[in-house]
């Protein structure tokens, strides 16, 4: 069940990723981008990395994609212009293929790859073993529920849930403390300067 859901979410991520590029209307494209983020977040949460998944939703979906959508909705884009330029994209297809295959080659040289890690293939194997069990009437326990990923009753998940934030915090504050402080000062400056600029421009305060 959980494996199946993970597969569906992974497929949804890839599918909506493709739709982001192919859809003509920019607003629809951003909506599919949001779908990519939500699917990826669900994928991460089901894998047991709940904190990263939820921060995906808060940061990417809640802040960044809203700004994308906001700006694209406000700009007056004529659909006919986009349709005209859309036909020019296909002539760059060889270039895209070259760059894409290079990227995939690099990724595969970095990441160790085996067919057992591809969940679709391993799911097929699971199905085969299940069928074997049905036919040969042997007992196989392969049912794992979705709620094992969420339900805090199970000691393992509570452990991991707590350890995640603490592990991230431990790493950040011990080994990257100075970088964290520098980043936070940069962010603070980035927040203070727009406030200052907007305060100066407004005359009624």
């Amino acid at each position, binding site marked *: 069940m959980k494996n199946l859901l993970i597969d569906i979410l992974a497929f949804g991520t890839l599918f909506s990723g493709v739709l982001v590029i192919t859809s003509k209307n920019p*607003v629809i494209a951003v*909506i599919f981008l*949001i779908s990519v983020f939500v699917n990826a977040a669900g994928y991460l949460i089901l894998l047991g990395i*709940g*904190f990263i998944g*939820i*921060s995906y*939703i*808060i940061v990417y*979906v*809640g*802040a960044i994609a*809203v*700004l994308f*959508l*906001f700006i694209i*909705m*406000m700009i007056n884009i004529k659909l006919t212009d986009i349709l005209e330029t859309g036909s020019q994209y296909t002539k760059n297809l060889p270039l895209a293929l070259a760059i894409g295959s290079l990227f995939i080659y690099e990724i595969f040289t970095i990441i160790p790859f085996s067919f057992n890690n591809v969940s679709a293939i391993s799911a097929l194997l699971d199905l085969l073993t299940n069928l074997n*069990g*049905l036919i040969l009437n042997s*007992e196989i*326990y392969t*049912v794992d*529920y979705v*709620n094992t990923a*969420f*339900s*805090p009753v199970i000691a393992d998940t*509570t452990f991991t*849930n*707590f350890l995640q*934030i603490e592990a991230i915090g431990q790493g950040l504050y011990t080994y990257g403390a100075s970088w964290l402080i520098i980043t936070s000062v940069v962010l*603070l400056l980035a*927040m203070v300067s*727009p*406030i200052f600029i*907007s*305060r100066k421009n*407004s005359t009624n*305060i």
Partner: protein
Amino acid sequence: MINNNLTLTIINLLINLIDVLLVLLPVLLSVAFMTIIERKQLAAHQRRVGPNTTGYYGILQPFADALKLILKETVIPSQSNKVLFYLAPISTLIFSLLGWGIIPFGEGLTLSDFSLGILYTLALSSLGVYGILFAGWSANSKYAFLGSLRSTAAMISYELILSSAILIVILLTGSFNFTTIIESQQAVWFVVPLLPVFIFYFISILAETSRTPFDLQEAESELVAGFFTEHSSIIFVFFFLAEYSSIVLFSCITAILFFGGYNAPELFINESVINLQSIILGLKTCIFCFLFVWFRATLPRLRYDQLIEFCWLNLLPVAVAFIILVPSILVAFDIAPY
């Protein structure tokens, strides 16, 4: 063996479904009563009678309203984007109802005792923006679009204040879990040490649920009705339910974060069948629902630039100052909870 597992799964699913229904039905009822509370209370503020003919004291008025709205004709603009037009109200309602999944109504009385509960709430409140944005854009109408842009800008800005106020509460408890937050308020409710934080938290939830004085997206004199101008009949009911459900939800979260949730003086703690704790949480929630309507009856609507300026120039610096001040105090007196 496999058959046995299957029945177990089905029984589990059924129990989960019943759990969810046990929370959802009272929530929807409370949303219905919230609307009648608002109308009666506004009437009382304005020295009118208010709705009083349907049922005793007009208590059945929300159901009559809902029936009327459902029986009306659904009008869909021909130039609209149909999928998003329907998706927007549905997603708004779903996201505002999903928030109830982690609210503890008593000791251990919760659908999910999620260890990242507060982050979940924040994620849902940021997802709620999309329904409004899609509703305004898909309707292909200027008024709806302007309303949704206004609403989104306000919600994004005030979400910053909301999350920084919640962050300060987290600093005091050291946990994202709602139950832990409630348990750590047994000595003193967080409203006592964090009164200024509570004030700007409450202002930000008024803006998050887009109530007066921040209900700029439904300024009737400028925009017809805001982002749901083109929505009618049942899909309008969805928006309506979502708005009031989020009001009740945020009142409940306020009670949990700052007023001790189901905690009460020793007097109310008992082992009998009736769970007084959830009644106490309900009473605390009612106080904030009352405050929401009180503000609506008292305060005039702000101008839009005032709304944004108030957030970015006044509230945000205060919030940042408190984010620096509170941990400094915790470190200086060595009273951090972790």
